[in-house]
Structure formats: structure tokens, C-alpha cells
């Protein structure tokens, strides 16, 4: 870690007392520690990672130690103890996506951005990460950029996505659900019953 330790940093929630109170109020009084995960999310969304300084602050808020906070953070895949890029590109690599070309997709992005798994570009704009199943198997392959899913990312869409991100913008999502997800009126068989033995 190459963050600079500034112990004079303003506490994260100093000017967000209302938000802090709201998060704490979601849990019962004897369950204050439950607020740890949402507090980590809150910090990370704004600062793109959670520094050791912030870990100490959160520990104090929920009544535990910074080591415990780090222990919780490191258990989960999506909390970062180092800053990620402006665009954190996560490529699902589990079976259904792999069957739809996620390995090739990942290699394409890696070549395009000049970084390998887990790295961030020198200008801090892009991070690239292989992740495990994100629940988009029916619309594989899927690329998650920050909190947004881009689904059925074929070669053309991947090119388009990279170009848009280079311009500094998240392109609009193309929402694809496949299957039945077209409303009941259309949710009827696409084919008459199969004869047994066909196929």
C-alpha cells in the first residue's frame, strides 16, 4: 500500500452525521456492528477504497478494532484496500460466461487497456478484474463496470463499451433478460410440445 498516512484527515462522517444516523438506525440497538458493511460501502463509494484511517474510524463507530474491520473487509471480494480506477471493470469468468467467450473477452480488454488481472492503469482511469459469477448467466458474457451490468457483451459491444469509457462515460445499458421475462402475454411456448425422443 502506498497511501500517505495523514492522521489529520477529516473524519469521513464529520459532515454526514445524518447519513451515519440513518445507517445505524437500520439495525437494532444491540446490533450496532451490523452497520459495518453498509458503512464500508458508504466510504468506498465515495473514496473508491477504504484506507486504514477509515478502518479506524469505522471501528470506533461500531465499537470494535481496526483489525476486526480489516478482517471483515478482507473476507469479502468487493471491498478494496487500495484505490480502484474511475472505471472498475469486472469480467465474470464462471462457467456460463466462459462458454460464451469470457476468456477471450477478458484477453481483449487486457490488451486494450495494457493491464492484467487486478491492475489499475497508471492514469487511474481503469481497473481490470476477473470475478466469479455475478448472476447474469442467461445474458452471458457479462461485464460489470462499477455498479452497472453490461450483458451479452459480444465483440462489437465490447469495442463500443471500451470506446465510451475512454471518453469518460458509462454508455447506456442495453437491458436484456431473455427467457420468460417479456410479460405474461408473450410468455408462451415458442414451440409445441416436443415428441419424446426428438433431439
Amino acid at each position, binding site marked *: 500500500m502506498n497511501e500517505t498516512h495523514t492522521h489529520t484527515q477529516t473524519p469521513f462522517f464529520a459532515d454526514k452525521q445524518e447519513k451515519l444516523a440513518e445507517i445505524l438506525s*437500520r*439495525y*437494532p440497538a*444491540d*446490533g450496532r*456492528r*451490523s*452497520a*459495518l*458493511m453498509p458503512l464500508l*460501502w458508504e466510504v468506498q463509494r465515495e473514496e473508491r477504497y477504504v484506507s486504514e484511517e477509515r478502518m479506524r474510524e469505522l471501528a470506533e463507530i461500531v465499537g470494535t478494532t481496526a483489525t476486526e474491520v480489516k478482517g*471483515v473487509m478482507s*473476507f*469479502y*471480494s*468487493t471491498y478494496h484496500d487500495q484505490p480502484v480506477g474511475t472505471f472498475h471493470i469486472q469480467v465474470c*469468468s*464462471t*462457467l*456460463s460466461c*466462459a*462458454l*460464451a*467467450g*469470457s476468456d*477471450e*473477452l477478458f484477453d*481483449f480488454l487486457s490488451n486494450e487497456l495494457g493491464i492484467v488481472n487486478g491492475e489499475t492503469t497508471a492514469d487511474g482511469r481503469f481497473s481490470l478484474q476477473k*470475478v*466469479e*459469477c*455475478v*448472476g*447474469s*448467466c*442467461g*445474458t*452471458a*458474457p457479462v461485464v*460489470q463496470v462499477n*455498479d452497472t451490468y453490461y450483458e451479452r457483451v*459480444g*465483440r*462489437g459491444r465490447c469495442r463500443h463499451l471500451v470506446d465510451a469509457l475512454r471518453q469518460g462515460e458509462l454508455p447506456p445499458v442495453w437491458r436484456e*433478460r*431473455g*427467457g*420468460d*421475462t417479456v*410479460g*405474461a402475454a408473450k*410468455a408462451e*411456448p*415458442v*414451440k*409445441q*410440445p*416436443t415428441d*419424446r425422443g426428438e*433431439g
Partner: protein
Amino acid sequence: MSDQVATAAKPAPILSRHDPRYEVTMYRYVGVEGAHTLDFYRSHGGYEAARKALTSMTPAQVIDEVKASGLRGRGGAGFPTGVKWSFMAPPDGKPRYLVCNADESEPGSFKDRYIMEDDPHQLVEGMIIGAYAMQMTFGFLYVRGEYYLGTTRMEAAIAEARAAGLLGKNILGSDFSFDITVHRGAGAYICGEETALMNSLEGLRANPRLKPPFPAAAGMYGRPTTINNVTSLTSSVHIINRGAAWFASMGTDDSKGTKLYQISGPVARTGVYEMPMGATFRELIYDFAGGPTMEPKAFIPGGSSTPMFPWEDRFLDMPMDYGTLAKNGSMLGTGGVIVIPRDKCIVDALYNLVRFYAHESCGKCTPCREGVGHWLPRMYQKLVSGLGRPEDVALLESVASNIKGNAFCPLADACIGPVQASLKWFRDEYEYLAANGKSKYAKNDWWQA
């Protein structure tokens, strides 16, 4: 249900979506523009089941109705939901919690996601019904961290419901009060295991807890707790609306009702399909998903943890129910079917899954931490990269059988089942690869334009 009625008078169960009596219910409004709003939901009959339960049924009657429906837990284990609900001790005036498990992380599963994104009020209503039945004082909805849209839609739906008096104090004018907090996970498959999920909700590392005590005795903060899957709860909405007999009119002897099946891999129309339990894999794969787009050789029946079957008529014609799958050495799981094409090396496919479980092993117990977390992925890596020896296949088999049944929680067995099934059906691919240093099926580029 009236078992006394002569069997001759009893109509045949609905076992296929082609049956004209079958109606899509849970997934009816998914994909419909604007369906996630309270206005839409209420104008399409929403919250009528909650009203019926809260104003005209006792909690015990709600539990009895769900028991009579035959609904079994949709998260994978298939435990009867009504029976689970009846395990809760009578209220003692202290807090008791309903937790909805929306940490949908099993590869091949994506049904809960679309319910939360497109029909979040259905889940809110299901939680109200479950909470009323068990007289819960508070609810938690644990959504996996990646489902950002689903999380925001659920939060918005809960806020709308609260503003409309559907959550909070004296819901719908009854004396029942209940509210829900959405808790966002942060990427950990193990949180699908209910005791790990509770640790995560308490702000701890999500290691599973020893059972007993079971959650109904000591769960969240040591208080009585019940954890239900998203679609177990949404099923209860329609059971209350239409009655247990309606739900039980669908399905096979041990598996009742309607269920969301998912299909992915190389088929024409991947996605979620709602079908009556007892419909066959063939009906899902061919009639609804349009059939394979590449020559298939195997399918995973219910999410990555469920042992695969080779592509044979006797397996394709199995009804997708709990008992049949168990009898055939697999599990219904989440109902997430993954089709595997002939040209995908089965060892490579399993390496992909083993790597997933290795990544998700929580580290609590030795067989899983070392065996699943380190040994298995390394052995697979060795084979896949062409460095295997013929005796490695037997070694792999021995490691797998030594892990099986010896781990603290089901995660390790969830990895071993698929490994063993692949060895059972496709041992020749393992042996070929170990002997020749290259796969029978060269790696293909399947990335579409």
C-alpha cells in the same frame, strides 16, 4: 386439502407448461415496463394476499395453508417451508427475525435477481406474509452486493410500501407491525449458507456457524430467526391468494407448485422460465429455450453444485423435481440448468467450477480450505496445462472422496459432487488428457460478434 375425496374425482396434476390449466404467476410481470412501482403492483392485485392473511387469517392458519400447499424451500435444499415456519417458538414479546436470503450466488442461478429488479413488491408482500405467519418483529433482506439495481429497486419498494402503510406499525389496519432493512452483501458465495449469512448480517466475517442451535432457536443476535429464499416467500403470496389446493394441483408427489427454472449455456433462448414442478428438462431445454445451438454432451441440472448428467434421453426426460433428481444422484438445487457443449473439454469446465469453489472457500475448516481451496484447483491446473500423469486421475478421485462429507458446511460437497459426476460420466476425457498432455477437444473461441 381433502385427501378423503375419491381419487377418481381428483383431476390429474399439472405437470407441464403446455397444460392449458397452467398459468404463469410469480413471473407474470417481470419484464413489463413500470412493474416495479407500487401503483402498478396494486393495480394488478398486489398486496391482496397480505390483506387476506392479516385481516382474515390467524398466523397458524397461514402456516397451515403453506404446509398444505406442499411448498418446499426454493433456495436449493428443498425443506418444506410451512414446516420450517412452524419451528418458531411462540412469541415472547422479544425480537424475532425474518431474513430473506437474496444472496443468489450459485453459478447458473439468476431468478431472484429479476424478481427484485422488476417485481420488488411481490417480495415485500411475501416477506409480510411470512413475517405475519411467524409473528416476526423485524425483517432483513440480504441482497448480494453485485445486485445494485435490485438493491435500489427493493429499497425504493420498501419505502413506497412504508409510506402506504404496508410496512411499519399496524399494517393494513391490523395489529401487526413489521418493517424491513435491506442489507447489501459484498461478494461471498458462502453467505448463501444461512448461518454464514447471519454472521455477515451481524457485521462479522461470514464463516458458517455450528448447528445446532438452529436459527429458529438462536439466530440473529441470538434471537429466534427464520431464513427463507426469495422465491419461497413470493410463492407464499400466490398460495394465500389462490389457496393451497391450487398450488398443490401442480407438480409431482414430493414437489408441488410452480417454480422458476433458469437455463444458460449454448441454447437458443437462455433465461428464466416459470414452469410447474414435474415438467421435464426436455420441455425446458427444447420447448422453451429453443434447444441447443451446439452439439451438447451434458447438462448441469440445478446450479453449479448439482452433479451433471450426460445428454441422454433417460435424463432429459426426468421431471425437474426434488425426488427424481435425488434418486438419480443429483439435486434440484436452484433449478439453474447449464448446458455443456461437446467441444468443451469437461476437465476444463470442471477446472472453471473448482476454481470458483476454491475462491469461495471461507477457510474455516481444513478439508475445504486445503482440499477445495488449494489441492483441487492445483491438480486441475496441472491436468489442463498438459502436465498431468496417468495416475493423477485416480489421485484426483481419492482427494475428492476424502473431502466429501468431512467439511464443516455444504460448500465443499457442493464442489465435490460435480467433480465426481464428471469423473463418472466423462472419465475418458480425464484419462485422455492425463495420458496425452492435451485435451480431446481443443480450446475454441466462442465469443460472439
